[in-house]
């Protein structure tokens, strides 16, 4: 169930209506009636499933339950139980159960894994909080880290390391062993693992209190807007929000709708459209000429930004509409004037996680320049590996680490050259730095996008050595218009024009704007929805 799909639209509308209807008895009655009538209309399917369960009760059989039926059942059940639970608790349960339904719509069995690991983390944190014995607390922390990282390693990296070992042994003359494991990568495992780790570490450090209620804690981990592709939520930001009673707020609703529309437009009209330029070239770089290779690189830089930030906008928007605030994940990263600034603007929740839970514990920048550089390299390499189980991601991380080190060294150099430092701060200097940073980042995306080293190197060869071949897969004008649109949007946002205009625009004009953005997103969508790039991480 992709965010940009009809299924998610119906899922979210059902959850949203159920969530805000709970306080009103007559609306609850309507919810129960709607849920029951839907379940009756699906009676044949449900009877078939029940019969199959009676004959062979098993988890895979239960996992065949259609998410629509499950959601209807959940909304009906919560609407009934609200009398006993109270509105706020009922809302937590509604969000929790619908989040599991959302995840189970991909794979029911993997939803069970999240349930178990989350329950264990909950118990571990409670144990750490209650215990005063440092050894016991440390043991519990290590147990939690081993479980979380162990699952991540098993599901995401086991095959990668086994295949790498196999290849290394083959290179040394051994015969191929094909050790591959038959595992499915749980969607979003990297995101919820990091959330669980930040919680247990913060509880261990006594920075946040352990959550006493299992449902609350599970909602923190599985809240569907951020479950599969972030932002990586911090316990200290999210858990207090669960405890706060939620009230209908038109301002928040408008903000949520605005973010969702922006995300939809970024994803459907820009990211998926840019994929039309990038995908064919990255699939067969040897067939294309140098111009097409550069256009594909530029298109991919736009694609990955609009894809991921579009998803983040939709996550933030849907969370807002349910009364929750998630931390922003992007802040116009392509206007960064240096690589350090880029990482403060790109995937902010991951960058700050890596800073707080990896870079600083390693020593951060408190030691010598050499130690700082080492810490940067380790952090970025692991950050690269976090993105995917492939050496291309590792190299991408290493290269980013090296560029960050270069930037540190250059900063130190500039301190001894005040005139150079001064020029770099002027408008032309800043523009040059932005262009250089963007070009570096865009070129490094080649390693991120290429499926193999050979493909990445071929791409670089076509980028820097003039080659004849096929031209861009689509008319260039489409790409340049998109670049222009992105630049204009950045200027409007940077100058603060949108903030100034949006409060003055009359309601019909705002409404017209929203409807136009939605319609344009629908018209410009190039093909049936592509999955978000970060879903696989």
């Amino acid at each position, binding site marked *: 169930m992709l965010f940009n799909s009809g299924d998610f639209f119906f899922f979210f509308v059902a959850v949203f209506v159920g969530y805000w209807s709970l306080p009103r008895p007559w609306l609850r009655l309507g919810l129960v009636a709607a849920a029951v009538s839907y379940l009756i209309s699906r009676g044949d399917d449900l009877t078939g499933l029940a019969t199959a369960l009676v004959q062979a009760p098993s988890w895979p059989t239960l996992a065949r339950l259609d998410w629509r039926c499950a959601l209807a059942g959940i909304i009906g059940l919560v609407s009934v139980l609200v009398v006993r639970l109270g509105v706020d608790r009922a809302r937590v349960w509604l969000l929790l159960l619908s989040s599991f339904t959302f995840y189970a719509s991909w794979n029911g069995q993997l939803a069970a894994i999240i349930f178990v690991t989350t329950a264990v983390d909950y118990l571990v944190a409670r144990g750490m909080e209650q215990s005063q014995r440092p050894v016991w607390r440390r043991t519990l922390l290590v147990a939690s880290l081993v479980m979380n990282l162990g699952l991540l390693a098993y599901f995401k990296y086991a095959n990668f390391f086994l295949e790498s070992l196999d290849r290394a042994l083959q290179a040394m003359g051994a015969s191929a062993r094909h050790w591959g494991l038959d595992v499915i990568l749980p969607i979003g495992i990297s995101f919820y693992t990091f959330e669980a780790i930040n919680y247990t570490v913060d509880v261990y450090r006594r920075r946040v209190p352990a959550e006493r209620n299992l449902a609350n804690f599970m909602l923190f981990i599985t809240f569907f807007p951020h479950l599969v592709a972030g932002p990586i939520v911090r316990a200290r930001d999210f858990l207090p929000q669960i405890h706060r009673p939620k009230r209908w707020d038109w301002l928040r*609703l408008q903000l949520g709708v605005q973010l969702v529309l922006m995300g939809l437009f970024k994803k459907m009209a820009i990211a998926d459209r840019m994929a039309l330029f990038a995908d064919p070239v990255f699939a067969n770089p040897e067939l294309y000429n140098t111009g097409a290779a550069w256009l594909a690189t530029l298109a991919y830089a736009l694609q990955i930004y609009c894809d991921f930030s579009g998803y983040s906008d939709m996550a933030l928007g849907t969370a807002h509409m349910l009364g929750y605030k998630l931390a922003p994940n992007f802040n116009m990263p392509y206007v960064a004037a240096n690589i350090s600034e880029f990482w403060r603007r790109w995937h902010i929740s991951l960058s700050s996680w890596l800073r707080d839970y990896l870079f600083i514990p390693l020593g951060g920048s408190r030691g010598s320049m050499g130690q700082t550089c080492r810490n940067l390299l380790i952090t970025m390499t692991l950050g690269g590996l976090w993105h995917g189980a492939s050496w291309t991601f590792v190299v991408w991380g290493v290269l980013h680490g090296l560029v960050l080190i270069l930037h540190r060294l250059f900063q130190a150099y500039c301190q001894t050259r005040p005139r150079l430092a001064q020029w770099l701060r002027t408008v032309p200097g800043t523009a040059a730095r932005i262009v250089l940073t963007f070009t570096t980042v865009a070129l490094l995306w080649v390693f991120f996008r290429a499926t193999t080293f050979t493909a990445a190197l071929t791409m670089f060869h076509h980028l820097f050595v003039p080659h004849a071949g096929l031209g861009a897969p689509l008319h260039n*004008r489409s790409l340049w218009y998109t670049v222009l649109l992105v630049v204009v949007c950045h200027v409007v946002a940077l100058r603060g024009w949108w903030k100034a205009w949006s409060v003055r625009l009359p309601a019909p004009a705002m409404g017209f704007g929203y409807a136009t953005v939605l*319609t344009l997103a629908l*018209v410009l969508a190039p093909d049936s929805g592509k999955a978000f790039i970060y879903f696989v991480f």
Partner: protein
Amino acid sequence: MSRRPGRRHGLHRRCRCSLAWAAAIAIGLQAGLAVTLDRGLVVLRNGPFHDKYQRLCQRLEGAARAEPLASRGPWRAGVPEPVLILGSSRSAYGFRSGVMEERLAAETGRPVVVYNFSMYGAGPTMHLLNLRRLVQRGVRPSVVLVEVLPPLLGGSGPEPTEGRWLYTHRLDRDDLLTLEAIGFPTEPRWPVWRWSFWVPWYTQRFAILSRLYPTLLPWSCREDWALDTDAWGDSHLVASALATRRDEAIGRTYGEYHALLSDFQLHAVSVAALRAILGLCREEGISVALVLMPEGPAFRSWYPASAWAAIQAMLSEVQRDYGVPVVSTRDWLTEEDFLDSHHILPSSAQRFSDRFVREALLPAFYRY
């Protein structure tokens, strides 16, 4: 103190109004286009059909200004006889209708209009829909040549293979009812059709962009390709296609068709569609011939013997039941005449069309 809640209330009202306007405009835009499409904006519902139909009308009206298009009476002396080709890409590239028109006019001494109404990926079901739409619009050809594309007569699922290219958003209600009548499983298509009906800015987006800004679309999504056909409706292979090496092109064709042919089974719906075309022609008094287009030796070798026997048996049965000629030109050309063993090269298309008129069309319909 009293102003702040008031200001907040004003903001809330503004937000509510903005969202209400947004919902109303968004729904209005969708509903407006949906109704317009339903009222017959064929250019967006089915661009290729619309474009070919428009050009056919222009040809017919240009050739016989005295005869209004919608008249359905018998064709008068001096009024050109329309000959319509309903085929797939093979016919689109394979026939040179201008050559056929000239030759027919010269041989019969009567004015003739030959129009190639072929569509890419079309099999008997799409031919039936197109012919029915044309007849409904008052176009009554004197002769229809219906291409039989053997791979699209088959299929192993509930839908025939051709179903893959029968896009639901391009169909209207009548089309779905026509499909239902020939036993096509339309049940799964109705919900998709309803969805496509109510969200036309999404489902018809390729058609919209094809008209407004075609360069935004990759070629595979363009719905304005019929505008590139010539005055007779024929398609012409582009230079990049002509530059393709034949062995590579044959390899691609093999990849596309081998699976369809290796376990080929005639599909009841495709046969029913073919019969429905012949039934419609009989009803309307239209002369019709079934045509098997040329195939290269490589393509011919991919048919299992049993598949070809089944196709031949079916065609014989249809020929017997409806008394229509079946023209097989399968082995008229050599491998060198094809781009990819089934799409004829332009130089050979001319020769093929000329021979087709001489050896098939004239004997069947003009020299009884």
